Structure formats: structure tokens, C-alpha cells
């Protein structure tokens, strides 16, 4: 049959044509490929300088298939959020991305996410989405391409942020910048306009604290909603597991200070003198330094009462934190810290450790003074607060247990106004 076909083709279309067809057939068979009706796109060359979606857009436009006429949320019964973000920082990823998945799924909303540099996945999750959430993105060719695709698909866009990365006034006065290489500060200042540009291209904004809302209002006219970080299932489960580990049976009182990124030495410096004095006043006291803390700032003689814990994964961090009797979270008084959320308080409460916090940022919102922790201020200094807890361990344990209960009931991921603005829930569900 093959020979008959070859000779017919050779007779009708010429020998070279028949030879070409025969070669293509043999080549396909040798490679184990099956016949297909789907031919490659005529514009099959890839221009390396083109955006990933550039040739597709061009082709769709040429075939009158570029525009989507209706917002998907209008036509679809389901809601599906696609989140594209910078997922490089583990803490940010946990609190602003991963915990949202269970939150929205509990409301019947699908939630998928992608790192913005995973372009195929980021592009793909947009196609079936009804809403786009962007997290911590700045303007680049890639983020602009993804935003452009979202607009082509007529997706409403929300931009989410938990640090004032857009703010020159915040970075310009951020005390912690004094502890890092000056070039890093210059870098952040240079990047700020790129974040603001991205924010202002969105329809609405969500941020993590009331302080952040107020500061964002100085830069952006977009509606800005609150979405606080909360204690998600992972936090509660890992915390409960960490609480099962035995505390050291050495009779020591442990104060924990945790730092998830560079520069927090300046925050620690706010209370370091009093804290050192408190620790050194009793050989049975320990200072637990967790994560990034430069030893150079520590006073002489404190070394033997310091316990160091390297920056680690979340489970190991909670295991270590569970050994503390209390946690301190000082913040220097500047605009940047005024936007800070209470994630460290949530972490400590997850392992039933009470926190001592100041009035900067949103930390005090999560602490019920005298019931789940202590809020220092004019009436109570840091060292006094530490002494209160060190002197009465029964009281300290009770604060910790109540703090744990508080995050299980009040600070878990429920769609309540202190966690998420009702307007934001309506923006997705409406």
C-alpha cells in the first residue's frame, strides 16, 4: 500500500514531492509520533527579545481574538483568585500568601498562587481566574506583562503589601537601615517608586495594619483595605506540636528576641541596656536570640547567658520559641515600624508564650494587657514588665495559655472585621 501511495504521489505531484512525503512519514514513525490535525502555528519562530506573551497577543489580535468582553466574575458562578507575588521571603509567603488559600477556600473561593518569575504558571493561573491579587510586586517587564494580561482578561486587580516598600519617607527614616550596608538603603529608596507605580495600577489595595493604611493614604488614591495577618492552621498546629516538647529543666527564666531579617539590631538596641541588666541580674536568666542578630551590639559579659538560634524553618523556630518564658518585641519609633504587624506576637502565642510589646506598630492590638501579655508604656517600662513575669511564673504561664486561646478563637482566619475589611470580602464575592 505504501509503495502504491508513493508511486501515485510521484505520478501526480512529482518524484521529489513523493520523496519528501515519504521522508516525513518515515521520520514521524521512527520518532514514535502519531498523526495529528493540529499544525504548529504559522509564526513558529520565537523572538528571544519578545515578552513571553508578546507573540500570542499579536496573533490573537490579528485573528480578532484578543479582547475578552465580559469580566469573568460576571459570567462565572465560582470565584477564583489568582495570586502572583514575590514569594522569596518565607515569612511574607506564609502570612500574605499561603494562609490566604485556606481563608478564601473557607469562603468557597478558589485560590491559586504563583511566583511572578514562574511565568508559565503565573500566566496560566490568570486564565481561569476571576480576580488577580498581586503581592509585593514592583514594576518590571515581567510584572507589567502579567498585569497587561490580567487587564486583557478583564480581571479586577488587588495589590497587597505588608511593608511600606513604596515609601521613601519610611525608608528614609527607618532606623534599622543604620545597621545594614548603606548601599542597601539606597537600593530600597531607588525601588520605592517602582512599588508605588505597581500599586497605583491596581484597582484596590490591601495592607496588613491600620498604620499601613494611614501611610499608604499619603501615596495612593486607591481604596485601601485592611487584611491583618492571623494565626492560620499551620501556626496553630505547629504551635501545639511545639508545646509538647519539654522545656529545659534547669530553672532558668528565658526571654526570647526573634529577628526574621537584617537590621533588627536597632530595635533590640531600644531596650538592650535594660534587658542586659535584667538578664545579668540573675545567673538563672537567659536571653534567646533567634535569627539574624549581630553579636557586635551585645554588651560584654552577656555572652554566657545568651542562647543563639540560627534562622531556620517555621517548625524549628516554634520549637525553640516554646522553650521561652516570654518574648520581647521592641520597635524603634519610626514610620516604617509604625506599619509593622503582630506576626511575632502570633508566633509566641502559638506556643503559649506571652509577649511584651510597645505601642509602635500593630503589636499592641493583639495583646490584651495583663491577660495575654504586657504592653509597655508610660506606666510600665520594659524592665519592669520583665520583672513582673520573672517574679510570678504562674501568672506568666497563665498569660501564655490565654494568649494561645485568644489566637485560636479571635485571631484565627475568620472573615471578621478585625481580620479583613468587609468591603474586601464583598469586592471578591460581589
Amino acid at each position, binding site marked *: *500500500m*505504501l509503495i*502504491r*501511495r508513493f508511486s*501515485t504521489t510521484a505520478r*501526480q505531484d512529482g518524484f521529489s514531492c513523493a520523496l519528501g512525503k515519504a521522508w516525513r512519514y518515515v521520520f*514521524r*514513525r521512527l*520518532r*514514535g*509520533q*502519531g*498523526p*495529528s*490535525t*493540529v*499544525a*504548529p*502555528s*504559522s509564526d*513558529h*519562530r*520565537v523572538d528571544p527579545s*519578545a515578552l*513571553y506573551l508578546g*507573540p*500570542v497577543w499579536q*496573533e*490573537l489580535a490579528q*485573528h*480578532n*481574538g*484578543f*479582547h*475578552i*468582553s465580559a469580566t469573568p466574575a460576571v*459570567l*462565572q*458562578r*465560582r470565584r*477564583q483568585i489568582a495570586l502572583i507575588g514575590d514569594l522569596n521571603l518565607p515569612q511574607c509567603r506564609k502570612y500574605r500568601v499561603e494562609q490566604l488559600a485556606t481563608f478564601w477556600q473557607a469562603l468557597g473561593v*478558589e485560590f491559586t498562587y504563583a511566583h511572578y518569575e514562574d511565568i*508559565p504558571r503565573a*500566566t*496560566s493561573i490568570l*486564565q*481561569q481566574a476571576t480576580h488577580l491579587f498581586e503581592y509585593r510586586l514592583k514594576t518590571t517587564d515581567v510584572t507589567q506583562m502579567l498585569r497587561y494580561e490580567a487587564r486583557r*482578561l478583564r480581571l479586577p486587580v488587588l495589590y497587597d503589601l505588608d511593608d511600606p516598600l513604596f515609601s521613601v519617607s519610611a525608608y528614609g527614616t527607618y532606623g534599622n537601615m543604620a545597621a545594614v550596608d548603606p548601599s542597601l538603603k539606597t537600593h530600597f529608596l531607588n525601588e520605592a517608586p517602582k512599588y508605588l507605580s505597581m500599586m497605583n495600577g491596581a484597582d484596590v489595595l490591601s495592607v496588613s495594619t491600620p498604620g499601613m493604611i494611614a501611610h499608604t493614604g499619603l501615596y495612593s488614591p486607591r481604596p485601601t483595605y485592611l487584611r491583618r495577618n492571623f494565626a492560620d492552621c499551620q501556626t496553630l498546629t505547629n504551635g501545639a506540636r511545639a508545646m509538647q516538647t519539654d522545656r529545659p529543666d534547669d530553672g532558668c527564666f528565658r526571654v526570647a528576641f526573634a529577628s526574621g531579617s537584617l537590621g533588627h539590631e536597632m530595635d533590640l538596641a531600644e531596650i538592650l541596656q535594660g534587658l542586659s541588666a535584667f538578664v545579668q541580674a540573675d545567673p538563672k536568666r537567659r536571653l534567646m536570640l533567634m535569627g539574624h542578630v549581630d553579636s557586635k551590639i551585645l554588651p560584654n559579659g552577656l555572652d554566657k547567658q545568651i542562647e543563639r538560634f540560627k534562622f531556620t524553618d517555621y517548625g524549628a523556630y516554634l520549637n525553640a520559641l516554646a522553650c521561652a518564658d516570654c518574648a520581647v518585641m521592641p520597635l524603634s519609633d519610626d514610620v516604617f515600624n509604625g506599619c509593622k504587624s503582630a506576626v511575632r506576637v502570633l508566633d509566641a502565642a502559638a506556643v503559649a508564650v506571652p509577649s511584651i510589646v510597645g505601642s509602635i506598630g500593630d503589636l499592641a492590638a493583639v495583646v490584651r494587657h495583663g491577660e495575654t501579655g504586657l504592653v509597655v508604656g508610660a506606666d510600665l517600662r520594659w524592665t519592669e514588665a520583665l520583672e513582673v513575669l520573672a517574679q510570678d511564673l504562674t501568672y506568666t504561664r497563665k498569660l501564655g495559655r490565654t494568649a494561645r486561646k485568644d489566637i485560636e478563637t479571635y485571631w484565627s482566619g475568620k472573615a471578621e472585621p478585625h481580620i479583613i475589611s468587609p468591603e474586601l470580602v464583598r469586592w471578591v464575592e460581589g
Partner: protein
Amino acid sequence: MRHILVANVFFAPHSYGGATIVAQEVAHALIRRGGFQVTAVSLCCRAGIADYAVLKTEVDGIVNYQINVPEGRSYGAAYDNPGITARVAELIHTLDPDLVHAHCLQDLGTGVITAARDQDVPVILSVHDFWWICERQFMIQMDQTYCGQHPVKITQCKGCVENYWAARTRFEHLQTMGGLVEIVTYPSQFAKGLCENSGFATGRGVVWENGIRLPDQSFAKKQSARRRQDRRLVFGFVGGPSQIKGWPLIKDAFAGLSETDFRVIVVDGSMDGSWWQGHDFSGLPGEWEVHPRFTQDEMDGFYSKIDVLLFISQWKETFGLVIREALARGVRVIQTDSGGSTEHGYIAQEDLIPIGPDPAPLRRQITDAIAAHPAHMAPCAVTDFDTQAAALEGLIEEALSKAGNH
């Protein structure tokens, strides 16, 4: 509002082939009837985009999700492709359609059916050619002759298929899948009979006749203006220079004619205008012209230029859209006895040209047509897309009822 997800290997903005036209036009007609939302899923093959990435596009109000397939897929992937199945399952989950219309599944694969069933979405399967019972899709053998099996027995396919055991696995898989849908539609009694007799989805089939686009109001005026301008008889041929579409027969039939006062227009249906490139008609009598591929919107323009359509297919087709399009416009048809393409009933059995290599019967009918000219035919009543969509609406309700989702 019923939401229908139509799965078709091609769909606008990348349309190709008669079945795609039917899928698109019926979708629009359903929407026009009211109470229906239609979304499509189809395939594309683009370099530079991730394999199995989904791209959303829309033409004339119908959203189409294109799944990007890689080149050089395996034999098995042409009928069951896990990459496509996963994407389709996601789409069904997201879109939550009331029903999946599996219209033309070649290359999409039967995962469309299983993905729908897994999510309790009923399926209507539409068979348009012989893909479900023949790996070569049209029952045309390697040597370009019609297979002729009736019923098809896979054991008889040895010597034609690429790998018998692979073909048998495919055949049995597709038979199983055919049994999983609520309703199977065929465009003609012939197609239904052949498939069911071959063991495919026996007892689930109905004939769901294809529609066509009827002529616009201005067509008759356009047609008579052309006939006044040039009184010669014009033959039309929509197809490539292949044996299976009857080109060698047409060439032989015309070559033996003594008459010369007529025109022939051949249509290049290829995407790139390559079908008739380099063909020399100078040895044939009459005036010959190659007409570019035309869209549904341009169809009247083509049919107004011809008086007689030549449909000399050398295999048993399942429907034959162009025949109905011609008849609806008062264009006479000379055709072979080609399966479902004859079921319009406007040509007497004795006038159907037997499939085979003898050019004499065709030459005789061409000569008669030239001799009788001008003998213009009145337009025939032919099913249109609105009527076809109305029939589909009934089938949808029946399928939903069968699936218990009424």
C-alpha cells in the same frame, strides 16, 4: 441559564474544517435562542509558550480556552492525552458547566469525557467523521482509496494501520468511551449506521443533521447580476487536488470534453494557499481559476459565481456541508454516491455517480449540464444552524434528564 462547554479541536479565532464551522455556528445559534451561555475549549500549537498552558481568547462573544499542545505527540496522545485531560478537568471545575458537548475530540482526546463524568457533568458526543472507528479518521487507506468496510472490524485493519496492536487498543478504548456519554449524535443516518454496526455506542445514537448558513437576502440579486454579466456556465470545486476528493476523475472528465465555452473555479481550502500552487490547467478546456479560501461571511460571494458544484468525493462522507450550501442557493450539484452526503434527497439515486475510477459518468453529467444551460435551479429547503441549534436544545434537555440533573 444553561452553560454549555463545547470541546472542539479547533475553535475561533483559529477555525479550520467543516466540523469547526458547525461547532461555532451552532454555539452562536444556541446563544441567539436565549437561555444559553457557551464556552469553548480547543487546541493550539505555539512555540515559546509552555506545553499544556491555557490561553483564554474570545471571538464574537464566545470565550475559548486554548490548550497549547507540543509538536510531535505520540500516537496514544492523539486519543487520550493526560496533559489535556488535566487542563480540561480544571476548566470544568472552574466553569461549572451544565453539560459538555464533546464535538470534535481528535487530538483533544477522550479525557474530555472522563473529566466531565468525574465531575458529574453529562456529555453529548457528536461524531463528524470516522475518527472513532478508524485511526486514519476518514477510512481512507494509505493508497488513498476508500476502505469500504461496513461494519468496521479492527481485525480487518491489519495492513492499513501503523501498528495493529496500538490500533486495536485505540479502537477498544474509544468504544468504551462512547459508552460513557448520555447521547451520541451523527450528522447522517449513514454515519450512525456504520458506527453503531461497528459496535460504537450502540443504542445511544441519534441523527442530528448539520445546518448551514442560508444565503443572505442580497444573494439572489448578486447571482443574477453575475449571470447577466457572463452567460457562460460556471462549475465550482471545493477541495484540493487529491485523489480522495476526486480531482483525478474531474481532470480526466474535463480532458475528454469537446465543449470549451464554460468556466471552472477551484477553491483552495488550505490555510496557506498551497493546494493549487503550481498546478497547470492550460491543457484543459474552458477557463480555469483558483479561488481563495472563503469564510462563512464570504460564502455568498463564492456561490454567486458558480452554477454547478462538483462533489466527486471518492469515499463515503458523513455529511457534506458544501452540497447543502450550494443547494440552498440554487446551485446544482453533481455528486458521487458518497454516504451521508446524499441524504438531502434532492438528487435521484440513478444520478449519483458511483465511486470509482471511470470518468465517463461524470463527463456525461458535465456535458448534459453544459447542453442544458441556462437551466437554473430554484433554491432548495435546507436545514440551517438555527434549526440545528433548536434540535440540540432538545438533545441537551434529554441528556440532562438522563443524567438526573434536570
